[in-house]
């Protein structure tokens, strides 16, 4: 195997020659501000990586990857920072769905879809949450009834980022209403753009349009599109959630670039402070340094937790620590941004400002909701990392059809 250092040099040279360098004042990539046109651009960039052998570094070679240890991806990611990268492919396609299929899919599913993702042909989304669901992911009421030939899906999913311009989805639905909650679920895969699926885009509280809601009307899915076993979809979902925690916590080895700012990068806040004429104010400098401290320690903690899981000193669920840390840091960052921006956060001249500090504040809780709420992370940490007793649930041991739940919400 090529040495890490040799790999670094080769990656550095290739990146300089082949990928567009970002301008130094480029806004950090923001997963919340993806436009439909960005998808094609990402497909092209991912293909460029793939053709040069820099895509899917940690995926097995037989499925289109390079079979390298995670350090190689970390090095490549680090080197790639100055360049435009196909970040849209990171989450959920490469960091969440691909490893889930790798863990749980059939050989046919892996051969068919993993290379397609890695070479930029398929963008995927998750159809997991439902409008009536809340934190209880296993409480899905989208129904999948077997008609002898196909599973026929009816129901609705929500919070699926990018569905309107993606290609495939992984979807959890209920196949047995007489079983207890977790035992009647099945995971499916499906093309998004087909009859039987309607995709609506949802406007966020900050005014951006990003999330989607989908409606299934007698959507037929063939049995070979089941991932894992029928009625064992919760096992698949748990793998998926594990990969999601790794991804959102920053410890996934499958990301081919960073999906956020460099951890110590507080340039956007520094710009905000300068725009407000307050960069020399000791109070503002204190706040800027605080963000730097929190983001630095967040990154350091991610490295520690990854090492701990690898050394089996921490359980795999310890990824929840990172999700919680990231979520709480996000809140503090938003609070500090509005303190720095002051009036610019709430009334701004459109020619010189975009009011982002204020808008981000309106959307602040997304840091603590996306990828599983901080409350769920705290449950996971206390129950599955620290081993504390589980919360009493009123839905254990009874058929799901008899469980008290929320009415479907349109």
């Amino acid at each position, binding site marked *: 195997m090529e040495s890490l250092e040799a790999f670094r040099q080769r990656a550095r040279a290739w990146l300089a020659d082949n990928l567009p360098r970002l301008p130094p004042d480029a806004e950090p990539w923001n997963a919340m501000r993806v436009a439909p046109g960005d998808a094609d651009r990402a497909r092209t960039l991912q293909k460029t990586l793939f053709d040069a052998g820099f895509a899917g570094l940690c995926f097995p070679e037989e499925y289109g990857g390079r079979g390298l240890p995670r350090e190689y991806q970390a090095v490549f990611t680090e080197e790639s920072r100055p360049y435009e990268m196909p970040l849209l492919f990171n989450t959920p396609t490469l960091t969440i769905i691909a490893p889930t299929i790798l863990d749980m899919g059939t050989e046919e599913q892996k051969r068919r879809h993993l290379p397609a993702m890695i070479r930029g042909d398929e963008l995927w989304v998750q159809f997991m949450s439902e409008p009536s669901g809340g934190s209880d992911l296993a409480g899905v009421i989208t129904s999948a009834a077997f008609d002898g030939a196909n599973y026929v899906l009816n129901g609705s999913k929500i919070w699926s980022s990018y569905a309107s311009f993606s290609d495939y989805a992984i979807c959890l639905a209920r196949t047995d209403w007489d079983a207890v909650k977790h035992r009647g679920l099945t995971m499916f895969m499906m093309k998004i753009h087909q009859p039987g699926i309607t995709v609506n885009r949802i406007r966020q*509280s900050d005014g951006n349009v990003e999330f989607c809601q989908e409606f299934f009307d007698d959507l037929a899915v063939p049995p070979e599109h089941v991932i894992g076993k029928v009625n064992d979809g919760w096992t698949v979902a748990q793998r998926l959630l594990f990969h999601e925690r790794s991804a959102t916590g920053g410890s996934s080895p499958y990301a081919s670039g960073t999906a956020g700012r460099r951890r110590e990068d507080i340039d956007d806040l520094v710009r905000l402070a300068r725009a*407000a004429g307050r960069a020399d104010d000791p*109070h503002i400098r204190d706040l800027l340094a605080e963000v730097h401290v929190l983001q630095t320690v967040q990154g350091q903690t991610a490295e520690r937790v990854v090492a701990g899981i690898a050394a089996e000193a921490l359980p795999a669920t310890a990824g929840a620590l990172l999700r919680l840390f990231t979520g709480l840091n996000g809140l503090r960052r938003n609070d500090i941004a509005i303190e720095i921006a002051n009036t610019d956060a709430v009334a701004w001249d459109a020619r010189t400002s975009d009011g982002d500090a204020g808008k981000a504040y309106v959307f602040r809780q997304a840091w603590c*909701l996306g990828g599983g709420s901080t409350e769920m992370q705290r449950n996971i940490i206390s129950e599955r990392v620290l081993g504390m007793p589980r919360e009493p649930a009123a839905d254990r041991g009874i058929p799901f059809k008899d469980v008290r739940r929320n009415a479907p*919400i349109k």
Partner: protein
Amino acid sequence: MDFDLTEEQQLFADTSRRFLADECDLDVVRSLAETGAGFPGAWWRRAAALGWLSLLVDEDAGGLGLGSEGVLYLGIVAEEMGRMVSPGPLLPCSVVAATLSRSGTGEQRSTTLPPLLAGEETACWCFAEGGRSWSADAVTMEAERVAGGYRLRGEKSPVEAAAGARHLLVTVRCNGQLTQFLVPADAAGVSIEPLEGLDLVRPFARVRFDEVEVGEASLVGAEGAAAEDVERQIQMGLAVCCAESAGAVARVFEFTLEWAFERYSFGRPLASYQALKHRFADMKTYLEGCHATTSAALHAIAGGAGDSALLARVAKAFIGDFAPGIIQDCVQMHGGIGVTWDHDIHLYLRRVATNRVMLGTPREHRAGIADLMAL
């Protein structure tokens, strides 16, 4: 809302709440936001007919003559408007009306006030000069004595409800001393540039005064003698801001509490989860704090108490620190739906986050408090 309103106050509160529910519910607010229409003029005139703009005005100037008690009624209106994230320039119009009633010339009282009180015209107060200058000490804009009057030059921002206002109450300095003028919005040299705003129905603007000449008759009070009026205006503004935010938070807490009872997760209502219950307990505690400190500020102003300057700033600092956080916690309780455009909660969050900054952030007020206490 106080627990010990008088019968008159309770009646007034009920009328105000019903009026807003009937004529300006959140669907109306949303449609105003979409169209950028500001507020419906006819509706504002009907609000004025309820006396909303006449609360601080003497009877002989066409007001209700409630005396110093008027501010308690104003607090009630502001709280109700907060509960419905209402549009309408209550704060600037009230401030201008109160000062004209107190210190305006006969002409100003007889000509300017009536259409203002009737909701037919609006006015705004030009005070801050860029961010972080919500104190009288920070006013630097000068009015220069010229033959037959004064010449104004400078910039005020952010100014609430400047666009569409008929009159601008402008706080400036003459020979270093605080002085106020009532300037027609269409005076030569006045230009008003709208700003983008977080609050979807509360517009702010930058107002430029480019060699604006006004006559002596534009003075509000004597030259150099506006300090007391300005401090009253500040206190009034702070109290209105606080009452409005307290109303907004109270309403959000109400519907979030309902949600927690109705929403089931893992077969149990959200309200049965101890971690959430404890957050509701914290929210409730600080919500009562918001009401309590608003009420204390309003009563201190109404009673002409010596510590009203301090108590108004205490209230603004406390509410600025706690009110937005309570609403954010309520967003969290709602989960994903709480960060969608279609859910009303962001309208409240926008209002309260805006109020946190306008007329001074908590930190700025704490600096003022330290000064007032001679720490």
